[in-house]
């Protein structure tokens, strides 16, 4: 099953910014997604950014990653500035949010 671009991007960035290896970084992102009731195949960039800001610092701290707060801050900024931001607004939440706002 293909993962969402937001998931792939966040996992790759986490691997680059920390000492976690490929599987550990993907597993960590998967666990924080699960905690927030999201799926790796459908999470979008806005949702991923919020999860990185709100849940990931705790998860990294629990794994003994040094500087977890600044890593998450960097990762959130990178997510916001990524090319993927142009495809934001395509999740059901983002679509309905646009449809109901006046």
């Amino acid at each position: 099953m293909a993962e969402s671009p937001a998931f792939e991007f966040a996992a790759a960035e986490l691997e680059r910014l920390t000492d976690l290896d490929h599987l550990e970084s993907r597993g960590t992102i998967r666990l924080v997604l699960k905690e927030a009731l999201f799926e790796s195949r459908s999470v979008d960039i806005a949702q991923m950014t919020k999860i990185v800001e709100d849940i990931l610092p705790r998860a990294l701290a629990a794994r003994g990653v040094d500087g977890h707060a600044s890593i998450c801050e960097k990762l959130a900024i990178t997510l916001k500035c990524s090319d993927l931001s142009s495809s934001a607004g395509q999740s059901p939440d983002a679509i309905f949010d646009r449809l109901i706002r006046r």
Partner: protein
Amino acid sequence: MLALFGIGCFFVVGLLVAVRLLELWWRTRQLPEFLVALALLGMGPLGACVFGAGYLLFRDTSLMSFFHATGLAIQGIGFSAAACFAWRVFRPNDKWAVVLTVVISLGLLGDGFGMFVLPVSPGEFVLRNHLSMNLKILALGWGALESLRYWRISSKRAAIGFADPLVSASFLMWGIALVSGTLALLSLYAAIVLIGPEAHMSPPSQLLTSCFGVVAAAAVYLSFLPPRAYRRRIEARASAAGG
């Protein structure tokens, strides 16, 4: 007259919401807003106006069948748009959803536009009508299931601060609107199959249609044009639940 009240409510709300969503689509050029507007107009006021015009102005003339076919084609477009919306919003990456959308759309558009070539008179109910009715029920029923399924997930996320409670409530309302539409069609279909093609004109059938129309109208309104008091209530309830 009984059915007119509920259907009238749905048509007025459908028109209001469709106009607002078309205005939004004009700015964003995004498909979902266009699809909902098309669905509401086609299933509601636009399709019915064409049917009504044919019935009132050209009854017992050759033009009546033209208006009947045009009304069916417009309705077909509306129901197809509802199915496309379910696919595009809730199942954009699932191949089976694409297949289901194509089957529903081809069936309904084929039935609507096929009416110009091989007309069936309004009083008849043949195999083609059965297929078209089943596809309409499938289009709305599928959309209802998808929206309510997503509302379940979204309401849990809202409870832990990862979804907007108002957006979550809109999934519920859109699901309720589609359930009402599905039940209205099912009750009409049951009456036609069990009693006869004219059974949908009977008072019990009209009363049911009217009730479903009112529920669908209220749900569509709360889903896409949530009034301030309703927004405040949802937000207050979410704040209270969040402590």
